[in-house]
C-alpha cells in the first residue's frame, strides 16, 4: 500500500494516489494516469532519499576541496557555491533528474485536466448552484505583474490563466498533482499545513475566538478549509488573484461541506475593500515566496491595517536563511528559486521576518516563530519520518505575532 512508514526493508514508500479524496469537483483520472503519478511519486521519493544526499557527499568530498585548493579559501556565499557545484557531474545528474520530474509532473497533470476542462467547469458550476454568493470574481481584475512574469513552479499559465470563461483546468491540475511533488506527505486533502496551524492555534490559544479570519493568497483553499472547520463560527474570507483557483476552491469547499468561507478575487496589495481592523486573524500559507520584492512590503502594510487590535497574524513559510545556515543548505533550499521557477523564493528567504512583522505593526516584543509539522491523515502511528528534502519536507517555519490592543 505505501503509507510513508518505513517498511521491513527500511525504505519509506509514498502512499498510492488513490488515497487522495475524490471530492465532487476532483478531475477524473484513468487507470494509467493514476499509475503515472504513482511512479512519479516514487521516482521523487527515490531521488530525495537516495540520490539527493549524494549531492552533499560530492560537495564535501570534491567540490569544496577543489575550490579551496584553487582559491585558498572556502565559499563566501551560496552564489559562489552554485557556480562551482554546477560543474560537478553528480550534481548535474541529480539536478537534471529533478528538473525532469517536475516537468513530467506538470505535463502529465496538465494533459489530464485539459482533456476534461469543459466537464470540470460544468461540474464546478453545478456544485455552486445555490451557493453563488460564496464566490466573487471581478470582471477586469488586473493580475499582479509579478504573477504574470513567471509560471511559478513550472505550471504553464500559472494560477490566473483561464482558457475559456468558467475554466478551472489549472486549479484542478494543482489540486490533483501536488501529491506527486509532496510525495503524499500533505494528507488525503493536501491540507496538512492548514490542519497543523489550526491545531497549533487551538492548543496554544484555547481562548482565542476569532470572529473574522482572512486567508491571503488562498489558492484553491487547501489550507483555508481546515481553519474554517476548526473555527466553524468564524466568517472566513479567502482572497486570491487567480480566478480558476477561486472558482474551483469555492466548489471544492461546498463539495466538502464547508460553508463559512467566501472566495474573493482581490490583490493583497490593495485590500481597501476591507475596513481597518476588520479581521481577528490574518493568515498566509506558502504565499509570501510567490509575491514580489516591492509587493511584499505593501502586503504587510495592508495586513497591519486590516488586522484588529489584539488580533493574530501568522505566516507559514520555509525557514529563512540565517547566518547559521550553511551555504550548502542555503544553496539546496534556493534550488527551487532558480530551477523550479520560484524566482522570488531566494530573495524572500533573505528577509528578516521580524522586520516584516514590524511593517505590519507587530512590535518585536510580540514576534514569535515556531516550527510546525504537517498533520497528515495518511501517516501511520509510529511512522518513521522521511528525511528532510530542502524545502519539500512537510515541516514549516511559522512566524507572526499579536497586534497590541
Amino acid at each position, binding site marked *: 500500500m505505501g503509507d510513508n512508514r518505513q517498511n521491513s526493508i527500511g525504505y519509506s514508500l509514498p502512499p498510492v494516489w488513490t488515497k487522495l479524496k475524490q471530492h465532487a469537483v476532483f478531475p477524473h483520472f484513468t487507470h494509467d494516469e493514476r*499509475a*503515472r503519478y504513482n511512479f*512519479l511519486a516514487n521516482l521523487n521519493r527515490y531521488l530525495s532519499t537516495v540520490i539527493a544526499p549524494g549531492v552533499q557527499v560530492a560537495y564535501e568530498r570534491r567540490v569544496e576541496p577543489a575550490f579551496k585548493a584553487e582559491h585558498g579559501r572556502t565559499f563566501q556565499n551560496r552564489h559562489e557555491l552554485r557556480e562551482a557545484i554546477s560543474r560537478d557531474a553528480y550534481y548535474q545528474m541529480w539536478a537534471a533528474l529533478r528538473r525532469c520530474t517536475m516537468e*513530467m509532473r506538470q505535463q502529465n497533470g496538465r494533459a*489530464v485536466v485539459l482533456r476534461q476542462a469543459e466537464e470540470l467547469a460544468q461540474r464546478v458550476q453545478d456544485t455552486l448552484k445555490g451557493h453563488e454568493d460564496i464566490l466573487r470574481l471581478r470582471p477586469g481584475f488586473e493580475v499582479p505583474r509579478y504573477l504574470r512574469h*513567471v509560471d511559478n513552479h513550472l505550471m504553464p499559465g500559472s494560477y490566473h490563466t483561464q482558457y*475559456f470563461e468558467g475554466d478551472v483546468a489549472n486549479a484542478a491540475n494543482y489540486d490533483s498533482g501536488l501529491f506527486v511533488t509532496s510525495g503524499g506527505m500533505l494528507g488525503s486533502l493536501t491540507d496538512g499545513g492548514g490542519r497543523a496551524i489550526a491545531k497549533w492555534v487551538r492548543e496554544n490559544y484555547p481562548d482565542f475566538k476569532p470572529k473574522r479570519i482572512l486567508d491571503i493568497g488562498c489558492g484553491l483553499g487547501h489550507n483555508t478549509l481546515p481553519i474554517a472547520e476548526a473555527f466553524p463560527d468564524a466568517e472566513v474570507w479567502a482572497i486570491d488573484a487567480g480566478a480558476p483557483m477561486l472558482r474551483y476552491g469555492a466548489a471544492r469547499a461546498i463539495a466538502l461541506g464547508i460553508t463559512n468561507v467566501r472566495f474573493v478575487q482581490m490583490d493583497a496589495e490593495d485590500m481597501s475593500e476591507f475596513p481597518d481592523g476588520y479581521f481577528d486573524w490574518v493568515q498566509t500559507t506558502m504565499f509570501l515566496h510567490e509575491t514580489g520584492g516591492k509587493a511584499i512590503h505593501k502586503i504587510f502594510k495592508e495586513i497591519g491595517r486590516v488586522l484588529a487590535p489584539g488580533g493574530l497574524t501568522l505566516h507559514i513559510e520555509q525557514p529563512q536563511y540565517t547566518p547559521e545556515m550553511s551555504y550548502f543548505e542555503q544553496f539546496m533550499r534556493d534550488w527551487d528559486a532558480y530551477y523550479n521557477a520560484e524566482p522570488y523564493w531566494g530573495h524572500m528567504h533573505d528577509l528578516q521576518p521580524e522586520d516584516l512583522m514590524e511593517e505590519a505593526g507587530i512590535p518585536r516584543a510580540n514576534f514569535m516563530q515556531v516550527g510546525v509539522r504537517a498533520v497528515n491523515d495518511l501517516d501511520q502511528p509510529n511512522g518513521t519520518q522521511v528525511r528532510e528534502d530542502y524545502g519539500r519536507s512537510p515541516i514549516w517555519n511559522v512566524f507572526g505575532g499579536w497586534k497590541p490592543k
Partner: protein
Amino acid sequence: MKLNDIVMGSDKAKGARPYFFDDPMAERVMNIAMAIATEVAVIRERIDTIERLLEAKGILAQAEIEGFVPTDEQAEERQLWHARYAARILRIVKQELDAVANPEDNKPMHQIADEINEM
C-alpha cells in the same frame, strides 16, 4: 470549449529552461528516456491490475504466473521476441558497426550524388 491536450499539454513554462549537463542534447535524450521509463511503469501497473482482477475472479492465481515454465516451443518464440526487441533498441549501435566494417558503403551522400551524376 474543447482544448487540445495533445499540443497544449506540453506547453513550456515561462523563463529559459536551465540545462545541467554540459551537452544539452544529452539531457534532452535523458528526458525522453525518463518519459519512456514512466510509461513502462504504467504498463507494469496495468498488467498488475489485470492479474489481480483475474485472481479475484478465480481465473488464474498469481502463483501460476510466477511458476510458469514455457514449453520448448513457447520458449523459442519468447526468446525470439526478446532478441528482436533488443535489436530494435540497439539499431543505432549496430548500424555504426556496419559503417566501420564496410567503409565502401559508408561514403557521404554528396559524394554518392556526384558519382551518380557521372553514371
